[in-house]
């Protein structure tokens, strides 16, 4: 153990340390203030900067093969930090109005972020498991943050029960993979050359791992919890869970799958690919078709997040260099889009919890022109319409699928994107070409410049990245050096 190990782990240490600091602050400081939010942002920015510096350095494995320090892990560290910063910015006004303990919220999102970083940089399945649990447990609490609201309680309970259930499958998968390959270390695993005889057990382990993972990312047959939880949880938290949490799960699954020793599965590799491709196709179609019939915006976004998990699974099914890069790019883009979308919903939400129906968005352009404009950009990007960044993210994913010989899957993806564009564009039509349905202002006016700045930044990033996709592809390019 030496200094370079600690430098590799520094983003993780910063995130967790800031969380602990905020906990202490929260315990001893009785005066309400914005300090925890500012501290959260400072910590996340510091972590992102350190990760950015690490990214330019040589790739290595720290702590005797426990933690990766390469472009992949640092790229994800940066986007998790960005998600934390955006969430903290959006949370500011929302949480203070909804009367939630701000210190606890900040500490929890930082702990969740440190768990995600562990998932994206774990070089051992133990570290990945620990990261997954650190993140999930923080999310369980975050979902139930509104202690006195029944919806929030229920969301937390559902999320907790299904999350713990999924953890069981995930862990059993890890145990069987460990048993059949004889090691839990991903570096050691990828260096195994002799083909083991325990093919079926390894296959079962991978399938169980996929089941647990599909629960966590709300992919098709395991998605039922997502709409309920995203609807009941605090809106800002839903945005954070559905983006950063999913990106973390995808980073972990890419790490595990790309470390599988060649030939260990023999004929099984093709079966696994078919399973993942089927999950991807079903998630894309089901998520988008069901989202068509939703009348509540948070549920609509939840189903669309299932569809987006399907798009990302397409990259996992391909599992080639393009696929991994495409997952990185789309994870970053999706994170910006979805957090900003939930941010606008939080902004327009009334204190009583109304203002969440699609009808409430009718005629929004006349009442809140800026909110409508930003939401329009986000919706166009979610629909994957050029020149916004969502288009390029999808383009690379479909390209990866075609390169891997999964042309049918890319076609399913394109078809489902066309279906999806209907309900994304419907919101734009509602906002710009319809009169407000309610005589009174359907949505309470809350002026909040900080939220606007956060959403504006995310939308600007979507436009810039859409016009110059090279910025992202260069960043992921380090991975393949």
């Amino acid at each position, binding site marked *: 153990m030496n200094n370079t190990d600690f430098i590799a782990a520094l983003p993780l240490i910063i995130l967790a340390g800031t969380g602990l600091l905020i906990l*202490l602050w929260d315990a*001893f400081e*009785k*005066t309400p*203030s*914005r300090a925890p939010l500012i501290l959260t942002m400072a910590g996340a920015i510091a972590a992102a900067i350190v990760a950015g510096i690490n990214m330019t350095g040589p790739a290595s494995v720290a702590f005797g093969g426990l933690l990766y320090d390469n472009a992949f892990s640092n790229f994800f560290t940066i986007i998790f930090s960005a998600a934390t910063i955006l969430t903290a910015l959006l949370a500011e006004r929302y949480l*203070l109005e909804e*009367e939630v*303990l*701000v210190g606890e919220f900040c500490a929890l999102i930082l702990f969740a972020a440190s768990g995600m970083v562990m998932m994206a940089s774990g070089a051992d399945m133990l570290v990945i498991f620990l990261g997954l649990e650190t993140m999930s447990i923080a999310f369980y609490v975050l979902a139930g943050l509104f202690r006195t609201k029944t919806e929030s309680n229920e969301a937390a309970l559902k999320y907790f029960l299904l999350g713990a259930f999924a953890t069981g499958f995930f862990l059993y998968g890890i145990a069987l993979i460990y048993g059949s390959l004889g090691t839990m270390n991903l570096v050691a695993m990828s260096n195994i050359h002799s083909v083991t005889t325990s093919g079926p057990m390894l296959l079962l382990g991978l399938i169980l791992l996929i089941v647990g993972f599909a629960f966590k990312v709300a992919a098709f047959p395991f998605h039922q919890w997502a709409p309920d939880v995203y609807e009941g949880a605090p809106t800002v938290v839903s945005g954070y869970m559905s983006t950063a949490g999913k990106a973390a799960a995808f980073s972990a699954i890419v790490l595990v799958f790309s470390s599988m020793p060649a030939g260990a599965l023999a004929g099984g590799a093709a079966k696994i690919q078919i399973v993942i491709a089927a999950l991807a196709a079903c998630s894309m179609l089901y998520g988008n078709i069901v989202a068509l019939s939703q009348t509540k915006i948070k549920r609509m976004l939840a189903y669309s997040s299932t569809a987006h998990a399907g798009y990302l699974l397409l990259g996992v099914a391909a599992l080639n260099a393009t696929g991994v890069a495409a997952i990185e790019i789309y994870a970053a883009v999706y994170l910006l889009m979805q957090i900003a979308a939930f941010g606008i919903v939080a902004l327009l939400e009334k204190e009583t919890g109304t203002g969440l129906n699609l009808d409430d968005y009718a005629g929004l352009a006349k009442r809140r022109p800026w909110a409508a404009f930003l939401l329009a950009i986000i919706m166009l990007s979610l629909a994957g319409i050029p020149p916004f960044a969502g288009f390029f993210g999808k383009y690379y994913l479909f390209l990866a699928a075609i390169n891997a010989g999964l042309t049918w899957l890319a076609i399913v993806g394109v078809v489902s994107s066309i279906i999806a564009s209907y309900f994304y564009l419907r919101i734009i039509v509602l906002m710009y070409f319809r009169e407000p349905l309610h005589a009174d202002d359907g949505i309470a006016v809350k002026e909040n410049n900080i939220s606007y700045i956060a959403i504006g930044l995310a939308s600007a990033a979507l436009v810039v990245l859409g016009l110059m996709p090279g910025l992202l592809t260069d960043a992921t390019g380090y991975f393949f050096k």
Partner: protein
Amino acid sequence: MLNEFSHVFAFFLLAIIFVAGGIISNYFIRPHKPNELKLSIYECGEDPIGSSWLKFNIRFYVVALIFILFDVEIVFLFPWAVVYKQMGVLAFAEMLVFLAVLIVGFAYVWVKGDLDWVRPKPYIAKLDDLISRDKPRIIPRPVPTMAQPVPEEVVAG
């Protein structure tokens, strides 16, 4: 013949014989003179009141939850103790960090009043507190009510 499990089984058998033998011989030797007071349920010398199937105060659970967390963390001390001599100062420093993290959690629980029997109401910042700082702020004060609407029929025995 005897493998590891038969040793265990022998101990198991011995334990059953020891306990059962005590109870059975006791039954034959003891005098049988029951009266009402002797047959009543023994509860710390007090007359029992009501059924024993009561709702316990929710504070018990909270304290138990906190206990479980700190209790299980001890599991990491065992492997640490085994390798402590070989690793020296580094192991000591790492355990200090580990305990420091635990202590932060403990301090949080303590200061927040979760270890008190009557928990103070959490003070939640409102927007007005931040916007109009000149306005007199509500000082958080411990409210002497039970934090939850569970019937208070039960107190520790």
